[in-house]
């Protein structure tokens, strides 16, 4: 009898840890890892640094190709999932290939968030949440002189490390997602803003973008307060949301993320979810919560895989992390349930 076919949607921290755990627990099983990304798994916090480096994106991969070969994993990069048919226990890929699974682990991670008030201008906005975005932005870097960052989340802050040393003229228009996922009071926010200004960033506070338009090659951002900023590139940095597009109308329970119990089991049989895409029920707080960050993803990925192998282990809320911005250390408890446990 053929062994189990484990399919993991997502080639990030959670997906990789899940794959490794599955292989340890089931040496004979077939494991397929599917990713919409064209490049290998790269730590998100290294992407901003990549912009300023001479490195090839492949050099930043957390695991070399040999890691997948040694674990006998079938890696499918650049293959977005169109939908999951839970009744049929199959996955339809965007290129119309159907893959059957015995056990499915959804580790699809998170993607950039486009706030509703910016959704009309989405085509004019540059995103930065994965390797693909990093390659695209890097190719644009030589032609960029002026950058406007909308929102100003933690990724946006990291991007300053690439833009400022390169002499780019940076404006940050903060919205309510500023410094996401930091939890901080108005005082610390102001200190951070002043620290950024000291580094040469023009910070627009307490304002709201009303329009982004294109004039020739230049993009013009207008605010309610009457500010107009001309830019070569307008980056949206307003936090992250779980990647769940392929689960629309599939029958699985989702809210912000895939709803899972403390064993990371989803609402349909033989399906688990882990990492940033999972919204787990925590007994500690008697509520569902999404968590972000590498440690969260690794721990949940491992737990989901163990449970898919037959264990019955509960996951716990991850410890909060810390973030250093402008020389100040911040404890991060997350935004509406997110935490970031990386250090800058």
């Amino acid at each position, binding site marked *: 009898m053929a062994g189990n076919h484990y399919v993991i949607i997502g080639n990030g921290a959670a997906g990789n840890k899940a794959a490794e755990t599955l292989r340890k627990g089931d040496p004979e099983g077939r494991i397929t890892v599917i990713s919409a990304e064209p490049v290998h798994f790269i730590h998100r916090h290294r992407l901003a640094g990549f912009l300023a480096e001479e490195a090839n994106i492949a050099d930043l991969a957390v695991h070399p*190709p040999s890691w997948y070969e040694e674990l006998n*994993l079938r890696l499918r*990069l650049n293959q977005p999932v169109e939908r999951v048919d839970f009744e049929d226990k199959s996955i339809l890929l965007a290129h119309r290939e159907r893959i059957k699974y015995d056990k499915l682990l959804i580790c699809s991670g998170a993607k950039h968030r486009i706030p509703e008030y910016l959704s009309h201008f989405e085509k004019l906005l540059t995103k930065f949440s994965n*390797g*693909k975005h990093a390659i695209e932005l890097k190719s644009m870097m030589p032609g960029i002189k002026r950058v406007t960052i909308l929102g100003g989340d933690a990724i946006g802050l990291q991007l300053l490390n690439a833009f400022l040393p390169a002499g780019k003229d940076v404006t940050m228009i903060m919205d309510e997602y500023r410094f996401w996922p930091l939890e901080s009071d108005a005082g610390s926010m102001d200190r951070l803003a002043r620290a950024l200004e000291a580094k040469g960033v023009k910070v627009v506070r307490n304002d709201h973008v009303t329009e982004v338009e294109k004039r020739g090659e230049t993009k013009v951002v207008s605010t309610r307060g009457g500010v107009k900023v001309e830019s070569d590139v307008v980056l949206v940095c307003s936090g992250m949301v779980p990647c769940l597009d392929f689960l629309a109308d599939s029958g699985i329970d989702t809210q912000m993320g895939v709803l899972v119990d403390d064993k990371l089991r989803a609402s349909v049989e033989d399906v688990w979810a882990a990492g940033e895409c999972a919204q787990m029920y925590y007994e500690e707080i008697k509520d569902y919560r999404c968590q972000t960050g590498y440690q969260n993803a690794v721990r949940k990925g491992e737990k989901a895989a163990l449970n898919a192998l037959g264990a019955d282990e509960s996951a716990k809320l991850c410890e909060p992390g810390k973030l250093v911005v402008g020389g100040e250390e911040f404890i991060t408890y997350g935004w509406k349930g997110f935490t970031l446990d990386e250090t800058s």
Partner: protein
Amino acid sequence: MRQVDLTIEICGSSGDGTLAVGEILVNTLSDLGYRALSFDVYPAEIRGFGKCVAHCRVSDKPVYSVGRSVDALVSLNDPYSIEQLATLKPGGVVLFDSWPLREVSEESCVAGRLGPGMYLYGVPFGELSQRSTHGARSRNLVALGAIAGLFDIDAEAFEAGLDRKFGGKKGNVAQTVKAAFRAGHDYVKEKLLKVDPVSFAVKEELEKKDFQIMNGNQAAARGAIEAGCRFYAGYPITPATKIMEILSAKLPPLGGRVVQAEDEISAIGMVTGAAMMGTRAMTATSGPGVCLMTEFIGYNVMTENPVVIVDSQRGGPATGLPTKTEQSDLLLALFSGNGDAPRIVVAPTSVEECHYWTSEAFYLAEKYQTPVILLMDLFLSTCKTNAVLSELDKAKLSANKSPSPGEEGVGRFKVTEDGVSPRALPGTPGFEWTVSGLEQNELDSPSYYANVHTEMTEKRARKLMTALQNDVPRPERFGAKGKVKLGVMGWGSTMGAVIEAVERANEAGLSAAALKQVVLNPLHVEDIEKFVDDCEKILVPELNYSGQFARWLSMHVNKPIHGLNMVKCSPLTYLDVLEEIERLITETS
């Protein structure tokens, strides 16, 4: 060192236009100054399905052999392309149709079969073809556009090539194919992000020479025409048929004739007659045809008649493998037939040499009144490359040793010092002679005396020695000079792989040299012996099981020969040879 050395394969089913894409790709890259070589793999049966692969190797420097591992695979048919993944390099690229007509299973989709270090790009070939041309038949041209877009190759150069190829067609064919090409190109530019390392970029602009894209069959046909061949008879056989097709169009306007005979025996018979009457005449066939022609080869040796026979080798024995390349007719070419029947055997090593040596074959045949067998093979016959053809020597258009006035009454087979007898064409008053397959004396009468047979046998052998001294070029040495660890001797189409392998071995600091001889009979034995003396070991790579060239050399040199004998149904690659060079030199060390 090469800046660019890439191999691209387009894989599809018969009817997908797979080979057409390969042809346009090579032509365009040639226009841009790249050196390219393409080789098509296709099924033996003429039908509407079956696997086709266009294999294209591209470099900034001349290429003589196919690549063993592939940098980019374009799939027009996933089930067939899955097999091709075995040769895709780590870091290689796959372009595939991301919008098939219906849902496909895991088993039949190429997307799930890539190694973790490979790069996959989906392009909806069929959908883009439908949108841009209102039909799905241009999937191949969408794929071509995708190649141009992904690797950033000048799209306008492709469009110029499409204009050249389709511009003369009725209706708006050229516009349609360009629309499909542009759809693929633009899709890649707008939708895909290139993340792989495969690149056609060169530091300096490539020199654009006046290349002529052609395959060995085209080159041979052209060489024949330029050499004054005015009669061709043949029976269709893969991979030689194209020569007849070309000549059937080109010879009649020049006053020549082409006859499709009922079989190979008739064909060689007709060529024998035409040659005897003084017309430069040729037939082209493959191994099975040469088998049938064997009796006439001996007859032409005996009657000292100048015929040219092209043998484009394929896998054998018998009907064998009609569409797979092999080099297993060497001993057949050298020794076929009864008795001592010396003949000249030539094996061109490149497309350019197919042109030059076909022409030269007519000269040698006429000058030395002997059959000349030109050994090509399926690879050489069908591989296309950007050739730079040499100017042919017009003085060689006439090489017959006609009898001088006053020689009337001297027999057709007069014994001469150089072994070549004066040859009067039939119908020349005063020079009538009798034709027969029997041994004849100087007065062209049948004779069974021992001294006559000895004299005539020696004469027939002697004229080949004359040819060797006067008209057979000395072997050419490549690679390291002086004493070397390893000497490599190739022949025919595999010589290109040998030269490239030795070049790479030298770059890697290995002590190796190569020796090339195009004329395989008669051989410059002294030169070969000298080369062999310079080498600690000798390697002979060839595409046959029994090591036919190695055996032929062993009859002349007193040193063990290491054979690299492959019957893999595909051309030898320089890596095949290089690995063996490394192994043998390591052993020596």
